[in-house]
């Protein structure tokens, strides 16, 4: 296993270098630069633009720009944001990482806690009314666009229920009075109040897929010989379901969890924008609009790295939960 992990980590290095080149190439062929947004400002003349280009290194040939950036990355310096005038990591994560992870983990828990039982229920009640209703609801969650569902929820809260009259906000991740304050019970309640709408919006979008996967894998497993054997051994139905079947259908979910690890760090953009949550994805979106190349480059590289680590962790976890899997 140790050799496997070392080999996988070694593979990551060329993969990241190639990714960085591809990413840089993609951004290099994009028309325009960060300075384009200033070109129509009467207060900024050509000399000022040239000075800013020199300050940001945009007056250099592309290979020099790449070399400067990658040299910094190797030394642990991911660069300096053009638009934010601060180090890239600070720009992306300061004041955002904690909320991003909290929302993402809450959404993940919500999705899994709701979807898994529904999937199993649907599988064990195949084609019955309960199966049809729950599957229909799950598909509704998947079909409704996140932005529309979010707007619908806000409309309901603001216009129909008029929660503002009760002093309840709909934007942000805690009430204004708790921002920057140490955690307290009241702050936690405010956090929960602000958390449920984005969790519901993002969570329902992912539910349908998970319900269908669980249902499908469960139904497949029901026909497996080990289930028949377990039942023949006289095991209770609960043990058959949860010890044998559920454990056996976990593998694809562990793999998808590893793939989605970078999502925990970046978060959902649409919900972040509509519910005004300070997430990493929102900072990245802003950088994309501003053509803030250092942030875009570092962000993509970082998310790729996290995805690779996620995959590695998923592979290790698979070996832990499934004794049939061994890495040599």
């Amino acid at each position, binding site marked *: 296993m140790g050799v496997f992990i070392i080999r996988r980590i070694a593979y990551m290095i060329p993969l990241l270098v190639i990714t960085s080149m591809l990413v840089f190439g993609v951004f290099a062929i994009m028309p325009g630069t960060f300075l384009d947004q200033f070109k129509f400002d009467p207060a900024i003349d050509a000399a000022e633009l040239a*000075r800013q280009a020199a300050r940001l290194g945009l007056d250099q040939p592309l290979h020099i720009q790449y070399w400067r950036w990658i040299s910094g990355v190797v030394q642990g310096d991911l660069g300096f944001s053009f638009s934010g*005038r601060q180090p890239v990591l600070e720009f992306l994560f300061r004041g955002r990482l904690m909320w991003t992870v909290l929302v993402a983990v809450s959404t993940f828990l919500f999705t899994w806690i709701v979807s898994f039982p529904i999937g199993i229920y649907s599988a064990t009640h195949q084609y019955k009314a309960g199966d049809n209703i729950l599957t229909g609801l799950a598909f509704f969650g998947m079909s409704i666009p996140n932005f529309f569902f979010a707007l619908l929820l806000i409309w309901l809260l*603001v216009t129909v229920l008029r929660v503002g009259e009760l002093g309840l906000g709909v934007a942000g991740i805690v009430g204004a009075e708790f921002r920057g304050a140490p955690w307290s019970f009241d702050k936690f309640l405010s956090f929960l109040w602000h958390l449920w709408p984005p969790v519901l919006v993002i969570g329902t979008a992912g539910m349908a897929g998970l319900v269908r996967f669980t249902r499908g894998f469960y139904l497949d497993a029901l026909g497996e010989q080990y289930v028949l054997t377990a039942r023949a051994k006289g095991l209770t139905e609960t043990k058959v379901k949860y010890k044998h079947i559920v454990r056996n259908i976990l593998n694809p979910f562990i793999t998808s969890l590893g793939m989605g690890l970078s999502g925990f760090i970046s978060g959902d953009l649409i919900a972040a924008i509509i519910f005004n949550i300070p997430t990493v994805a929102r900072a990245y979106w802003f950088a994309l609009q501003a053509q803030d190349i250092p942030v875009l480059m570092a962000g993509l590289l970082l998310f790729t790295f996290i995805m690779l680590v996620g995959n590695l962790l998923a592979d290790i976890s698979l070996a832990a939960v499934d004794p049939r899997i061994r890495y040599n």
Partner: protein
Amino acid sequence: MKIISILLGLILLLGTIGIARPDYVTVPLGVPGTIYEGFRVGAHGGTLRSAMIANPVVFNPIVARDTASFWPLARLQNSLIIRNPLTMEIEPSLATHWEVAADGLSIIFHLRRGIRWSDGEPLTADDLMFTFVDVFLNTDIDARRVDWTLPDGTLPWFTKIDDYTIKVHFNMTFRPALIAVGGIGILPRHKLWHTVARLNPALGGVCGFNHAWGVGTDPAEIVGTGPFVLYRFIPDVEIRMKRNPNFWKFDPAGNRLPYWDMVVTNIVASIDVAFLMFRNKELDVFGPRAEDLAILKAEAPIKGFTLLITEDLAWGQEFVTVNQDHPDPRLRELFRDLRFREALAHAADTETMIDVVHLGLARSIWSPVSVNSPFYAGWDHPDIRWREYSLDTAAALLDEIGIIDTDGDGWREFADGTRVAFRWFTNAGNELRITKSLIMKDSLRELGLYVTFTGLPWPEFVGRLLAASGDWDAIVVGFTAGVDPHGAGIIWRSIGGLQFWRFSAGGPGGRHPAAFPVADPAPWNARVDELWDLQAGTFDDAEAKEYFAEFQLLINEHLPLVYLPSGQFDFAFYNHLGNFGWSNINGTGSDPWGVVTSFDLRQLP
């Protein structure tokens, strides 16, 4: 007896050494005959909540370039002079007064005495010299010196006369210098001197000022003379400022201003979020768009807010223009023909644009100077040529040029029989410009002009306009505008650099000398250049206004740009706010909504 003698002696001594009362300012709230007549004395307390859609990038006014940074900076820092947001007149701020020399070659600024920074340190002429000389004129520092650069290319220089007086010298008379120099936010030397390499040898020649007062700085380190001091900044969440305990303005009752304990600016991802927050009572003030008005009008009496629909127009102006340097000689000749541009103006269905795009809340404009500017020549100037929407007039002009439909296919042709066809661009994502473009396209189709419309991403759009290749035909775009039109010299002077519709006017001195080795100006360009020098060369605003009026009429006559309707300012605020003074100074940095919200707002009991 002895104690009384000592006290008397002390009073005499203090009088002798000249300890004077500080030069505080009393804002005449509620005083009849003043612009603050309609205001009332308020009480301390409360939090004002507003929103904006971007994070500030830096709290350093010298290196800041973005609007979001200037929003808090306008409240944290002060300059020597300022434009009053209600009258737009230049008035003293940190300076008690100033004197312009008779020859216009120097200005003496007298600093208020007894003013303290928010951390309690005294403000002196050393802070002014630090800001102007050690920082602004320091080429190591990323300051925007373009506004300070005189027409002859020189910069001003400064001398300190005493602890409260400085003199600024110029090579030539330059009217815009007053606000350019006097409007710079003054910095505390005691907090920032160590970041300037020439003052701090320990830096080893590496200037640290450009990165000083970044958004990660401890708020206690950011010291100012403005009405508020920074309390907290959380990216994508809020900027929170609290009252400056040393602010130097008072109300007539002797209360130190501002009244608000806190000012919270929520940072939202889109204007839609701000709209919802306002409706949910999470914001006290909101600048609505035209499409928000119907909902707000219905909700105002229920939720207890006031919707203010003003007559003031936005500062920026949108326009149609055509490429007079077009590589295709037929299109170049056509676009250079005044009659064609007049036909475009007559084809602009401004009423439909006002109704459809601005929902009725807009007005047609004619001038390159903002209608809000004191230098605007007015709506009723007798020499203005309004070109009303009339497809018949437009068609007649096109016929007169000689582009007519010779083959009966419904499209006009050049004399050589080829169809008159051109591309129409605007920047993708700007729905207002796209809709206006489509309305124009409909009119042009009726006139028999074959136009293909494309919305381009901003970088590509700007790239095409500013490239020497001139790979564009017609566009809709807009410029921002300031109070003093002098700043638009980059657009209007033939060598300014932004006259993209006719770069050739600038010739070798212009933006693309390689492409245009010989200047090819329109006949009136030279007069505009001359007017620009004339207005800058007088400190008499009335005289400058006359020069600007001539300039505006020249543009109106020769029509390099065809202006499109401009939207009105609207504003909504909850009725628990008081002392609301509307100001249309939006766009020049004092207040994003054009409302005086800094020191003269108060919560009514």
